[in-house]
C-alpha cells in the first residue's frame, strides 16, 4: 500500500498538489458564472488565443513566468476586444468575429514559437506540465485565486442580477457591461493560472466541467459556485494522483476525472439526471388519486 502515500513524500508533488487545490477551486468557482452566462465558447476562443501571447513572451523574455503571463493576458485581451470591435463596426456577429480572430491568433502563435530564442516545446504549452510548477508559478496562482474569489464574492449580488436578467439589472442601476468585462478578465486570469498545469487547450475543461456538473445537482446559485469550487479542487487533486500512479499526463488525467464527474451527474443526479427521469412513474396517479379522495 506504500504506493498510495508515495507521491506525498516528494516536494514536486506537494507543490503540484497545492497548485491543484488553488487552480481547481478558483476555476471551479468561476465555472458557475461561465456556465450560467453561456460563455463557454468564448472561453474556448480565449484559451486558444493565449498561444501567440505565450510565444511572444517566450521570444522576448524566454521562459520567465512574468513574461509569459503578460504575453498571454495581452493576447487574450486583444482577441476579446478585437472581437467586440469587429462585430460592432460591421455586420459580422460576435461569435463569428471571435472565432475568426482566435483561429488567426492560434495559427500566429504556432508560427511565432519557431522564432523563440529558447527551444520551446509546443506540446508543453498545449497540454501543460504540472510537475514543472515553479515557486513563481505558485505565487501567480495564489494572486489570481485571491483576486478572483475576492471579486466574485464581493460582487456576487450584482453578478447574480446580471446573470439572471441583464436588461432588468441594468435598469436597476447595476453596471452590467462593466461586470461582464470583469468576468471576462477573471476568466482569462483563471485560464492563465491553470496553463502550467493543463495547458492552453485543456484549461477550458477546468472552467466548464465543474460548473456543468453542479448545475445538474442544485437549485441554488451559492451551492453552484461553492460546489463548483469543491468539485474542481477534488477533481484536480484526484487527477494529479491518478496521473502519478498510472504514469499518464496530468492534464488529461485531471480533465478526464472532471469529465467522469459530469457524466455521473448527467446519469445519476437525483434532481436533473436522466436515470431518475426514466425511472420515475410517467404520472403521479396514486398520489393525485389520494389527494383527490382526501
Amino acid at each position, binding site marked *: 500500500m506504500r504506493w498510495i502515500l508515495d507521491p506525498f513524500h516528494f516536494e514536486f508533488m506537494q507543490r503540484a498538489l497545492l497548485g491543484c487545490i488553488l487552480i481547481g477551486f478558483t476555476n471551479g468557482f468561476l465555472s458557475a458564472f461561465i456556465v450560467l452566462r453561456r460563455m463557454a465558447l468564448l472561453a474556448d476562443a480565449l484559451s486558444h488565443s493565449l498561444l501567440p501571447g505565450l510565444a511572444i513572451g517566450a521570444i522576448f523574455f524566454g521562459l520567465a513566468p512574468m513574461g509569459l503571463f503578460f504575453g498571454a493576458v495581452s493576447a487574450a485581451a486583444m482577441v476579446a476586444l478585437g472581437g467586440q470591435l469587429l462585430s460592432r463596426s460591421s455586420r459580422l456577429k460576435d461569435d463569428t468575429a471571435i472565432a475568426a480572430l482566435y483561429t488567426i491568433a492560434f495559427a500566429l502563435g504556432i508560427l511565432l514559437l519557431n522564432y523563440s530564442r529558447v527551444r520551446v516545446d509546443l506540446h508543453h504549452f498545449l497540454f501543460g506540465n504540472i510537475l514543472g510548477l515553479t515557486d513563481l508559478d505558485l505565487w501567480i496562482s495564489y494572486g489570481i485565486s485571491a483576486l478572483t474569489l475576492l471579486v466574485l464574492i464581493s460582487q*456576487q449580488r*450584482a453578478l447574480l442580477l446580471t*446573470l439572471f436578467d441583464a436588461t432588468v439589472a441594468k435598469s*436597476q442601476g447595476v453596471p452590467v457591461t462593466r461586470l461582464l468585462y470583469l468576468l471576462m478578465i477573471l476568466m482569462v486570469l483563471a485560464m492563465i493560472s491553470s496553463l502550467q498545469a493543463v495547458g492552453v487547450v485543456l484549461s477550458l475543461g477546468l472552467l466548464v466541467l465543474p460548473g456543468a456538473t453542479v448545475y445538474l445537482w442544485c437549485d*441554488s446559485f451559492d451551492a453552484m459556485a461553492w460546489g463548483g469550487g469543491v468539485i474542481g479542487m477534488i477533481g484536480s487533486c484526484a487527477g494529479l494522483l491518478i496521473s502519478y500512479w498510472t504514469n499518464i499526463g496530468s492534464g488529461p488525467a485531471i480533465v478526464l476525472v472532471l469529465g467522469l464527474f459530469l457524466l455521473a451527474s448527467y446519469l445519476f443526479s437525483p434532481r436533473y439526471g436522466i436515470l431518475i427521469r426514466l425511472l420515475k412513474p410517467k404520472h403521479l396517479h396514486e398520489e393525485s388519486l389520494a389527494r383527490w379522495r382526501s
Partner: protein
Amino acid sequence: MNASHSLEISNLTVSYDRVPVLHHISLNLRCGDCVALLGPNGAGKTTFLKAVAGLVPIETGTIRLHGQSPQAIPREISYLPQREQVDWDFPITVRGLVEMGRYAHLGNWKPFSKRDAEIVDQALATLHLTDLAGRQIKALSGGQQQRAFLARSWAQQAHVYLLDEPFEGLDKNAQHDLAESLRQLSREGKLVIVSHHNLGNVAELFSHVILLNGELVAEGSVEAMFKPEWIDKAFATEIFTGPHQHPHSHALDS
C-alpha cells in the same frame, strides 16, 4: 389628485434606428390604478413599457414619477419581462427570486437582515406563494411564474408594476388568480400597467385603459373610454402605416 402620487408622461417619443415607434405621448396615471395598455401589434405597447422602465432610450419628452426622474429612483419601477426572456433553468427557487428583490436595497455589502426576510415572507404571502417557496422556478405553472416575479417586485417595494402580456397563455383559473393579484396591488396603492390584447376581458380585469397606436388614441377609465369608436380608432391600420414624416432629428442635434 395629488400631483406627486402619479406617473406623468409628457411628449414621449421613442425611436429605433431613428424610426419613431411612439409619437409624442402625453398622459397622467394615478397610483392605485390598474391600467390596460391596448393596441394592435406594432402599436408600441412593449416599447412604451420599456421606456417607462428606462430600458430603452427616449428621444423626446419626460417621464416623472412622484415628480422625480425614474433614473433617480430605479427601484420604484419594476418591469416584468415577457416569459420567453427568462432563463427558467436558472438555479434559483421562488424564495431566491423574491430575495433578489431586496438586493436593490442592500447593494453588494449590507447583510440580509431579519427585516429583509420578513419582507420576503410578506411578499410570498401576498402573492399566495408561501407553499411554493422552495420550488425551482421552472416547476411552477405559468400563472405562478408571473406571481413569483410580481412577488420579487413587491419585495423590492416597487411602486409601479409594468407587465408585458402577462395573461398570454394562461388558462381561465390562472388568469383569474393573476387578475386578483393585480387588483390587490392596485388596492395597496400601486400603479399597475399591463399590455394586453384580448379585448374581451378588459372590463373585468382593469379600471383604466390606454389605447395606443403609435400615438395616443385615448386614455381614461374603462367606463368612459372603452367604447367602440375609440377601439376602432386604435385598431385602425391606416393611422401610422408609412414611414413617419415629421422630423424628430432636432433631438439628435443637441
